[in-house]
């Protein structure tokens, strides 16, 4: 047995030495648009902070702080944040914002360099589906657009009985990826959309009117829209001017900004806008204790989810951070956790893929949330599935509520 003593001493010293060197807490970067889509960024950060607060801002026994990084929608700034992360000795993970483009553009860079990224909002399908011959460092707890297309078409065709449906899509990688899934969902029903209209990322009133004119002329009476909140608001107002009872199903891109300020309540009511959401509101209705507790901790004692400007960000950020806490706890049991930041990231990545115990969140009890990514299991890094999707409607005050 004496043979075992020195290694134990060595380990203890290493721990002590390591912890003694670690004067700086670990950092979680929140790479989001704090300037334009402020509400979403802040809601995500609040969700993460609330979950970390529950564990005293400790991850696997180490202090952690959340560092906001404003990319203002610019992919290049996200890249800069990623580089800063890689150069940092204590940046453990990046939590993404509502945008998909940064992670669509740099997915391979992130996986090749080991940028551990947790996405509570970005929905583009390909982000979590990198090459199969290398580790996948990107995890998502959000809508997965490979499933949202089918969900939106199902809502429009089967629930609302729409016959002529327009597809109104932003002309980015996100919009184009969704176009494919939406068309696939149509084809499965042996249907075609009445019209497909792509539009640029920053349109004005004239373009919005022209698009609306085309859509109404096609005979469409319903629409499925993928837009950010500012373009979406222009389009909705333009459509309402021409056909007030045009029924609209929107991806959640319109939330997280000032959509409700630009689109009056009567317009939202006339058009019965259904917004793709995860089922946070439903859980609230169901009386989720986890949610109530989280809201209390977030400073909304006795409050409701819809009081938050971007509740999705909060719920997803919170659940994702809880999974992060559980994964860090599991990783801390490995020797790698005691290594440098690169080793910690690796340990955490592996724990995320192999969590032993279920994690309880607001939306779900994740058992497990993620699995090792393989060619056969391309949804392994998706914490949510199509069953976790719901629709929400705008209330008079502009906040969202479950559509029932």
């Amino acid at each position, binding site marked *: 047995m004496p043979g075992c003593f020195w290694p134990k001493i060595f380990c203890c010293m290493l721990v002590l030495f390591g912890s003694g060197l670690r004067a700086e807490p670990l950092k979680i970067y929140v790479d989001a648009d704090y*300037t334009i889509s402020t509400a979403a960024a802040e809601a995500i950060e609040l969700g993460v902070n609330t979950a970390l607060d529950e564990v005293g801002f400790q991850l696997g026994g180490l202090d952690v702080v959340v560092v906001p990084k404003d990319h203002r929608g610019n992919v290049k700034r996200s890249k800069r944040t990623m580089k800063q992360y890689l150069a940092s000795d204590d940046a453990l993970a990046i939590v993404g914002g509502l945008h998909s483009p940064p992670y669509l553009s740099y997915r391979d860079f992130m996986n090749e360099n080991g940028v551990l990224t947790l996405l509570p909002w970005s929905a583009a399908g390909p982000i979590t589906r990198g090459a199969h011959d290398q580790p996948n460092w990107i995890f998502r707890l959000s809508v997965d657009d490979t499933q949202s297309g089918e969900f939106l078409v199902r809502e429009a065709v089967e629930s609302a009985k729409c016959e002529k449906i327009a597809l109104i899509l932003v002309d980015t990688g996100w919009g184009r990826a969704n176009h494919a899934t939406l068309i696939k969902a149509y084809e499965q029903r042996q249907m075609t959309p009445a019209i497909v209209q792509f539009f640029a990322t920053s349109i004005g009133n004239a373009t919005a009117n022209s698009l609306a004119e085309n859509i109404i002329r096609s005979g469409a009476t319903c629409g499925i829209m993928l837009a950010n909140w500012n373009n979406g608001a222009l389009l909705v107002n333009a459509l309402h001017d021409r056909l007030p009872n045009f029924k609209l199903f929107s991806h959640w891109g319109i939330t997280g900004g000032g959509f409700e300020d630009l689109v009056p309540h009567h317009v939202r009511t006339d058009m019965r806008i259904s917004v793709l959401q995860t089922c946070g509101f439903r859980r609230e209705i169901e009386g989720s204790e986890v949610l109530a507790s989280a809201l209390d901790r977030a400073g909304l004692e006795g409050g409701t989810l819809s009081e938050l400007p971007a509740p999705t960000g909060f719920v997803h950020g919170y659940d994702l951070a809880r999974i992060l806490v559980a994964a860090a706890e599991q990783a801390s049991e490995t020797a790698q956790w005691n290594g440098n930041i690169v080793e910690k990231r690796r340990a955490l990545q592996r724990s995320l893929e192999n969590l032993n115990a279920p994690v309880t969140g607001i939306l779900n009890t994740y058992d497990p949330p993620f699995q090792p990514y393989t060619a056969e299991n391309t949804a392994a890094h998706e914490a949510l599935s199509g069953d976790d999707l719901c629709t929400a409607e705008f209330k008079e005050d502009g906040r969202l509520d479950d559509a029932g």
Partner: protein
Amino acid sequence: MLDSGKQSRSNNSKVVSRRFWTLLGLVLFLAVSSSALAIRFTANSFLADYQAKIIVDQAEIDARNLESILARHRLLLSIIGNTTDVVNVIMGYVDNTDVVSDKLEKMHRPDSLSWVTLFDALGEEMVHFNAQPAEQNIFAASEIAGLVDKLIDQTNPDSKQVLLRTIGKKIYIVLAEPILNAGWIEGYIVATFSLDMSVVFPANEVAQSTYVTRVGAAESVFRKVSDSAERVELATGDLAIILEPDFASVEGAGAQLLRKTVGAIAGVLTLAFALFAALGRAALVEPHRKLEAQKKSLAELAAAAELANDAIIMADIQGRVVWGNPAFQSLSGYNLDEIIGRTPGSILTGEKTDLETVAAIENAYKTGSPIKTEILNYSKKGDEYWIAVSISPLQNEEGELYGFVSISHEVTEARRQREEILAAKKETERQALHDPLTGLPNRRALDLALKEKGRAGENDAALVRIDLDHFKYVNDTLGHEAGDFVLCEVAKILRDETKGDDLPVRVGGDEFVILLGESTCAQAGESLAQRMLERIRIPKIYGNKTVRVGASFGVASTCEGLLPLEDLTIGADAALYEAKDLGRNKVRIYTPELHKSVLDRRKLARAIRRGIANEEFVPHFQPQFDAHTFEIVGVETLMRWAAPDLGLLYPDTFLPVARQLSCLDDIDAVVFQKALREIELLNAEGTLIPKVSFNITAERIQNPDFLDNLPQMQENSPKISFEILESVLVEEQSDLFNFSLDRLRDIGFTIEIDDFGSGHASIVGLMHLCPDVMKIDQRLIMPIVECETTRNLLKQIVGMAELMGLRVTAEGVETFQHAEILAEMGCHTLQGYAFAKAMPAHELKDFVMSHGAESLKKAANDH
């Protein structure tokens, strides 16, 4: 004396004018020079300020010009930089290195653009477009990087940063414009533009040189250039221009200003003096000159009047002569002393002078108005002469009448010639409206009279139409002189029997018309006609021979309401024809019955024309039979009219009218074509008709259209034969007729002589014509059963035909007894009711199908 007077007047005028202009020029010179001196002494200080101001103004102009150029370039960059495609690239949503070149391709790219680069929010170069490779390295990469770093660090999108370099005559400026997304700067579009100094700062008289400098460097450049240089910063605050003035030029400009000012004052003064000169000339010099000119003109006029060929006299306001020229004295025979103080009327008029003309001239004198007229005057010797005179009032400058001038010339000969021409014209007109033989008005006079009645709206009119009976006989037997005698006698009767307002007319040949005077109707015309008939029938003695003629009269009037005025002649004609039809020497009135008959004929004529247009005329076919075997050997085509409203009509009901309308050929053509078609059809259906014959007139045979449109004879077609009336044998036929007949034979048609024996058959004509068949008239056929003479006659005719080698067809065969006799006589072909009537094609088909020669023979034998 006159010449010296003119010279003196001309000199006076020139002297006045010269003095006026000299004085004016002197005063103008003094005014301009004193003004120039005054300006020279007072403008010095003002001039210095002016020079300073034009330097500042020029610098401002140059600065604004540069600003404007840069603003355009910045706008271009801003437009490109804020297109969605560029924003997408800058935001990292799209990777497109050609985005700038794509945009520039769609826009008007300025020649001054050297290169464009897009920098992202982190200052990294994303897209570069190189428009002018030679200008790529004007600015070092570090300079550009430094500029971009400054831009990235600043937060105010309105802050301008530039780089500047001047090389030779060119300025290179780097401009940068922010690329915004949702109002936030996410990158910069940076570009270099090369500007040509001579374009940005065009050469002018103020600047020696103009420089561009960055604001920070402006002071040092400013000091280097000149103490008197002018500096102006651009509104964007990043650049300034420095203008080094050209003092020599500026001072020159001051002097030029002075010159211009003096020039302007001189101009104004000159203008004022010119106005004064114009007014002065009008008020002083011009009246003087005009007076001189008037004097000269009057003297010249007086000289011209003295020499004029026209007689001129001038009279005072009372019309008394005050002056006369030699031509007047020569024309009138009076000298001046004899006429001055007297009125022209009192000495020149005589007994034949037209008093109305005299009164008109006196009235012109009284009223002071001008007059032109011709008047007969008497000379001092008492000779008559005509003058054309023009008398004009004379007025002074105030418009007051002070006398008259009379200008006249003799027109005695001209008037004589004119009157002769008028008389000749009158006679020509009379001849144009009268018959030269009888002196009666002619047809043209009648037409004019009828038109005049129509114009005058005279409702009632009557017209008698007269046609002499047997007049041709008179002409032929007694000669034309006798004929003319008769015509003159009849004309005399017409003149005698008509009243003053009746119009007796010879309308041509032996035809006369009387258009009765106003308010006369048919009864009056009839009485008149009866009287004339009586007188015309009285035998007349010409030479030692008695000449007898009669006349037929047709009377028509509008009184009965049957005829309008324009149809009166037609009505009288119709009545006349009836009178002739009734046996001549008759008077007939156009009665309602006659009117109805005329209308019926008109109606029938219209129906015939319509029938031709609609091809209502149809062929019926009467079969012809071999006299011995009773086999059908052919058919004769007979025309019928299937009029929709009248039923089926036989030719005797419409042929006379059709003949009058000259449309027989058209009907024949319709029937001919239809018959051919129908027979062809029967043939095609197996009903074979060996021969079809058609009646044809001599006129139609000669019609080139008929010959040109004949069908080609086919081998299996029935033979076609043309039946020509026997009358062609009597009249001598033209060469064209014979030629046409030969052509018909050449084509293969046969010729038959129809109705032989009905008229004056000419054996010589028959020999000459050489027909193939002789058709004997039914009037010779019908009596043969009873009348032996006819039978014998017929035998001779058939024998003659045999001699001539003609086949003989008998028509009008009404009984089999006839048939038997005719067959025995040697007739070859029989046609008549005993066998068949004429029938339409479909009946003919049935007839042929059911025809049995044997049964016919049996019927004949039974008979």
